[in-house]
């Protein structure tokens, strides 16, 4: 194959059929021309649009003998069937067919589709190929017009100029379903909600109840279809609402309803513009103060006055001694704060300001043998119930000793 660079410097090209041959129905000519162009658009990023007036990139005409200002001429029946000019302004791209030929849509005479497809190869920048199987071979060869006429040589040629078809966008990965007993389980956000605790992870959430030994696994969308997946923070405010955060937005939820006019910007809460997302949030129900965690910093928000407290942000470790981590999720349960980071969770006494226990995040799901599989319930059904969940406060001597040992061991690490 041969080609001239740079070809058209664009991928969207227009064409216009200036006149029609009387040999064929207009619709048949339209079809032959369109299919002749599609031959090339099937293997390149090129797209062709037909226009009916004005100057198109590819002006198509049926002419005879010496015609207009065209520097090439036709020679009556047989001989030369058509010609076209390489990409460029003026005559560039223009394609002429010899009206003295007998144009057809099938095998008798000269098949307009085959000749047009060849000429459009020139109009796009290809020159003749000496490969006798190529459409760009100069001599007319009667091929089966139902078969795709390009040879590999033609495809290589045109792709040398315009590249291949644009790659299909990669299929989004199947969202993974989190496993409650995965020892590496982490949470995006955790919040209490009335008498429940909700653990958010990707598109899903788990719900546990304070006094019922049951856990439910649901799609977030099944409760609040308008919420996005991959929430980053959530908390329950003293007015029976939960606020969920993602990037610079937050939504307010009451029961099963996301309140109108949300999402709103987190900056309406008083965050400076440099804060682009919230890692975690928790409201102290006693003081009605909400703590927002952003990296190593925390802000305190007064739920009564709806303003940020002065003196913040503070370093998390300064306000919560022992918590020298970036917090993934936080919530308050029975007076204690629980901070999650990775697969670890820290029970924190906000009165004495120290860590009282360290445990796995999924301790709440009472996994008997934490492993990389679901337990007790079939999470593939997206909704499931576990049997016999016991909340941490149920006394377990061994767990208590385990906690004390870890507390002593890790307090030194995290301080």
């Amino acid at each position, binding site marked *: 194959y041969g080609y001239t660079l740079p070809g058209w410097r664009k991928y969207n090209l227009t064409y216009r059929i200036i006149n029609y041959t009387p040999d064929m129905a207009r619709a048949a000519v339209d079809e032959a021309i369109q299919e002749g162009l599609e031959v090339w658009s099937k293997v390149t990023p090129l797209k062709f649009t037909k226009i009916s007036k004005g100057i198109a990139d590819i002006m198509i005409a049926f002419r005879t003998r010496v015609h207009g200002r065209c520097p090439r001429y036709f020679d009556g029946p047989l001989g030369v069937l058509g010609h076209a000019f390489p990409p460029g302004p003026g005559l560039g791209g223009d394609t002429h067919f010899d009206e003295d030929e007998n144009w057809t849509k099938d095998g008798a005479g000269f098949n307009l589709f085959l000749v047009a497809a060849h000429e459009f190869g020139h109009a796009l920048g290809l020159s003749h190929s000496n490969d006798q199987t190529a459409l760009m071979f100069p001599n*007319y060869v009667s091929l089966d017009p139902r078969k795709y006429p390009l040879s590999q040589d033609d495809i290589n040629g045109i792709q040398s100029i315009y590249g291949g078809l644009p790659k299909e966008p990669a299929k989004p990965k199947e969202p993974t379903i989190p496993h409650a007993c995965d020892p590496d389980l982490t949470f995006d956000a955790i919040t209490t909600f009335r008498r429940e605790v909700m653990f958010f992870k990707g598109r899903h959430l788990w719900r546990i109840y304070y006094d019922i030994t049951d856990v439910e696994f649901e799609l977030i969308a099944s409760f609040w279809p308008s919420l996005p997946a991959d929430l980053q923070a959530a908390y329950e405010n003293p007015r029976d609402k939960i606020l969920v955060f993602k990037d610079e937005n937050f939504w307010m939820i009451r029961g099963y309803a996301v309140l109108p006019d949300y999402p709103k910007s987190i900056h309406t809460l008083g965050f400076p513009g440099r804060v682009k997302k919230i890692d975690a949030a928790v409201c102290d129900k006693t003081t009605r103060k909400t703590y927002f965690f952003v990296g190593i910093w925390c802000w305190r928000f007064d739920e009564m006055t709806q303003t940020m407290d002065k003196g913040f942000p503070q370093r998390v470790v300064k306000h919560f001694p022992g918590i020298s981590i970036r917090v993934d999720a936080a919530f308050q349960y029975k007076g204690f704060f629980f901070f999650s980071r990775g697969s670890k969770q820290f029970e924190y006494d906000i009165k004495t300001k120290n860590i009282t226990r360290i445990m796995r995040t999924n301790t709440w799901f009472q996994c008997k043998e934490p492993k990389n599989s679901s337990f007790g319930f079939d999470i593939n059904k997206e909704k499931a119930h576990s049997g016999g969940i016991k909340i941490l406060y149920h006394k377990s001597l061994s767990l208590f000793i385990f906690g004390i040992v870890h507390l002593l061991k890790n307090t030194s690490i995290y301080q």
Partner: protein
Amino acid sequence: FPLVRMTENEENMQLAQAYLNQFYSLEIEGNHLVQSKNRSLIDDKIREMQAFFGLTVTGKLDSNTLEIMKTPRCGVPDVGQ
């Protein structure tokens, strides 16, 4: 008979010249040459054309070469576009 033969050869040579002019830049390259050199250029162009079409390269107007020249084709030159 010799007269007819000559005419046919002439016709073929005219056809070949027209073909080579149009598709192999013969006229552009040869218009400043003397006739003897022009003849040599025609032979070269015939070879070039034969090579392009995968014919036996002889530089002579044999039947296969003439057949190709008489086949309906695209009007865009094969060389020197």
